[in-house]
């Protein structure tokens, strides 16, 4: 199965002008994250399909909580759970383990919104999926697309 064929002619979106951020050079500063940083992490993968924008990311450093809302390219995109899985894997690798991550499809953006959200929030199914070589390969491919 070739995921690329599901949406063979994706609309490629312009990346909008980014807000400027000053980076702390203090090595001892508390490792705080903001939406832009999370967006940077994610834009290394699925951004060009406009799946996630900076506005769809909420970060609460105090409670170590990140919420990402993504918009599948088409209403019946069967890749929605795989895209969600990619986002989760990416954040799992980049954020400290104390972070709680909730990943959801944008309201009304997908025909099986509730089912996709439920599946993405079930960590047992996520764990099992990430032991599936076929799916892991698909996720890795998705995460490497930008670099490749």
């Amino acid at each position, binding site marked *: *199965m070739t995921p690329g064929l599901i949406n063979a002619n994706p609309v490629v979106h312009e990346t909008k002008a980014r807000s400027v951020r000053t980076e702390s050079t203090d090595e001892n500063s508390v490792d705080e994250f903001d939406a832009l940083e999370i967006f940077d992490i994610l834009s290394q993968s699925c951004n060009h399909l406009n799946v996630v924008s900076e506005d769809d990311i*909420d970060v*609460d450093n105090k*409670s170590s*909580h990140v*919420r990402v809302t993504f918009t599948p390219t088409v209403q019946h995109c*069967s890749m*929605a*759970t*795989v895209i969600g*899985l990619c986002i989760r894997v990416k954040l799992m690798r980049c954020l400290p*383990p*104390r972070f*709680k991550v*909730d990943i*959801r499809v944008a309201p009304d953006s997908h025909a*099986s919104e*509730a*089912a*996709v*959200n*439920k*599946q993405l*929030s*079930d*960590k*047992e*199914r996520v*764990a*099992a*999926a990430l*032991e*599936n070589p*076929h*799916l892991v390969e698909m996720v890795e491919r998705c995460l490497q697309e930008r670099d490749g």
Partner: protein
Amino acid sequence: MENSGFEPRSNGLEKLSMVDNSREEEGRAQGAAAESNGNGIGLGLSLRLVQELEGHLDRVWSVAWSPSGHTLASCSGDKSCRLWENSSASASSTTWRCQAVVEGGHTRTIRACDWSPDGKLLATASFDATTALWEKVGGEIENVSTLEGHDNEVKSVSWNSSGSLLATCSRDKHVWIWDVQPGNEFECMSVLAGHTQDVKFVTWHPTKDILVSASYDNAIKVWTEDGDGDDWRCVQTLAEPGPGHTSTVWALSFNKDGNRLVSCSDDLTLMVWDTSADLYDSSPDHALWKHVSTISGYHDRTIFSVHWSRANGLIASGAADDSIRIFAEDREQSSTEPGGSTFSMVGKEVKAHSTDVNCVQWHPTNPRILASAGDDGVVKIWEVIGNLSLLG
């Protein structure tokens, strides 16, 4: 892709969004109110960390005490089980050590484990679709049997009270009942179909051959053996549109007498069920199990584990909010509903693990000892501090 287990499924329910701090406040308020509510112990219990047991290389999914309480088994995403024992007679002394690492039997995550009632066999359920049986043979732990049959991940395993039956459940939506035969032979007795989504948890009634299963389809199902044996059927479903959970049911636990069952869910609630009705009664208007109480407003992320102590009567719950909470049934019931009960939180450990708490298990005989397991790869032994004598 069809078998990936990660394509969209039908009908799920909306889950919480951001961490809702007001909910936590509400929970605290309810907990505080409980101090003057019935049993008078209020928030009087606390958990003292006895020891952290480190060694697993991945998240620990589940722990199980041997029937004597001498050994604690833990299982993990690192595909191994570890057996922990205390060299001292006191479970609350800091002398727990890993006595054995059980590995090589599974090729994927070990999701759950359970000891046979005689403590001789350990059953392990794995994402590799098999259930393995382990026995101590001359100082070594040997894999004496492997049960194959499920189509994909096995998620829970449970022995019945006599040790004659073993139940397993899987993402394949089925529950299997295995007949335990001499010589470590296990024969599939029945395959139970009824859940519409993956089955997360199975447990047996503490004295009767009644099996209860919990699922991603939000339902709890109760199964009994047909009159002439060998076949099993669902005799009751605890789910909406009646009282029931509104999201995945992750775990179940009976109280000591088997007249109560508690369930925990992704819907952030615990539900207590009256299970005193005899479901083997075949008369047309026989009584059914019924909802008694919903405990809500405490955990603010998925509740993965619940366990009703057979030694102290308390309910412990562990959740993705990293906390462990302890609940007691109120002695003086203020409920207006006949047969109703209320429960109050009597203790909590807000940061029990640095990440999700996946499992909590009370010691089988010592009323003060609790074990927990988390995504942080650590198993913890806790001692309950406070007056347990006020409990019913």
